[in-house]
């Protein structure tokens, strides 16, 4: 049963995942945390950090992690394979279909129209993770340090395009000394 669920969830993500790994975050979060409760919201955040820091495509890293958590070794293979399955079919059909100029402009217009929605999708994934579980409460309902880390990391990433792995390592060091 769990294998069927993993297969279905990641095929769906493979079909609807326009715009790269981060765009899949909302989809994965909705299924994995809200729908099937394979992971808590903190474990989801930890998984994103680990997937970001290890080499290889982020979405394959996340699929492997989710699959392993939900269904062990076989689950991890199944989830990664399910994520690639729609692509296997697309390469044979869609690429041939869109190999001409007309198809190409249609696809690029489609993606242009989708882009604002994808941005909203990614933003929503970040907002959903901004909760009491991920932002540690210190003292009386304050979570100052978490907010300081978040704001500083945001400024460093948005304005200075700082290396995400460096930012994760630095916040880990801060966490080690502060908590």
């Amino acid at each position: 049963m769990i294998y069927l669920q993993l297969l279905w969830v990641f095929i769906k993500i493979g079909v609807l995942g326009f715009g790269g790994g981060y765009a899949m975050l909302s989809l994965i979060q909705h299924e994995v945390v809200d729908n099937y409760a394979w992971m808590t919201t903190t474990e989801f955040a930890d998984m994103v950090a680990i997937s970001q820091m290890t080499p290889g495509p982020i979405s394959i890293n996340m699929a492997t992690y989710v699959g392993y958590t939900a269904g062990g070794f076989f689950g991890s293979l199944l989830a990664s394979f399910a994520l690639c399955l729609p692509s296997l079919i697309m390469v044979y059909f869609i690429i041939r279909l869109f190999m001409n100029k007309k198809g190409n402009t249609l696809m690029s217009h489609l993606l242009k129209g989708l882009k604002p929605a994808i941005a909203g999708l990614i933003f929503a994934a970040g907002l959903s993770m901004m909760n009491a579980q991920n932002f540690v409460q210190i003292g009386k309902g304050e979570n100052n340090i978490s907010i300081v880390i978040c704001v500083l990391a945001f400024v460093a990433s948005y304005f200075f395009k700082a290396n995400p792995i460096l930012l994760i390592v630095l916040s880990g060091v801060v966490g080690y000394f502060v908590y």
Partner: protein
Amino acid sequence: MKIVFQLFLTFFKIGAFTLGGGYAMLSMVEQAIVDKKKWIPSDEFWDMMAIVQSLPGVFAVNTALYVGHRIAGRKGAAAAMLGAIIPSIVIILLLATVFREYRNLPVVERIFKGIRPCVVALILAPSIRMIKSAKVTWKTAIIPVATVALIWWLKVSPAIVILVAIAGSLVYAILMERKMKNVENKEVEP
């Protein structure tokens, strides 16, 4: 057989050593496939990448499938895809096993308490950069705002939101095509 194995090896290296996801990988693929091995001419490679980028799914996998298929057919596609994903699967399996064992240790918990808010920032930053690059105006700002409200506030399934967005974008794409055609016709007429 040799070329199939070479494809596997090329994408294995790319999968094992590129950090930072799909787009960081692109220049490595270009270097290996176009510059060094000369398997695909440069202009064809970039034309195809424009299409591959607009497809859903894992960008690295789509690229591997296209390159593999173009060079060595189905076997090539399978070899390139496996090469691209096997390093990820092996590394994450090892890490996940260890991490799930030790994540409750106080030291690990402290480190990850610091990391979690950083992860949130690393998700929010590119989404805002994307809104900027999509040239969202006051009129079209309704799209990302509605998306966030539906998913975050009303807990609507993101899958449904994407399907609606695709339908809307298709209408937009077809209208744009018409407009371009009209402009072309007008240019011919006078």
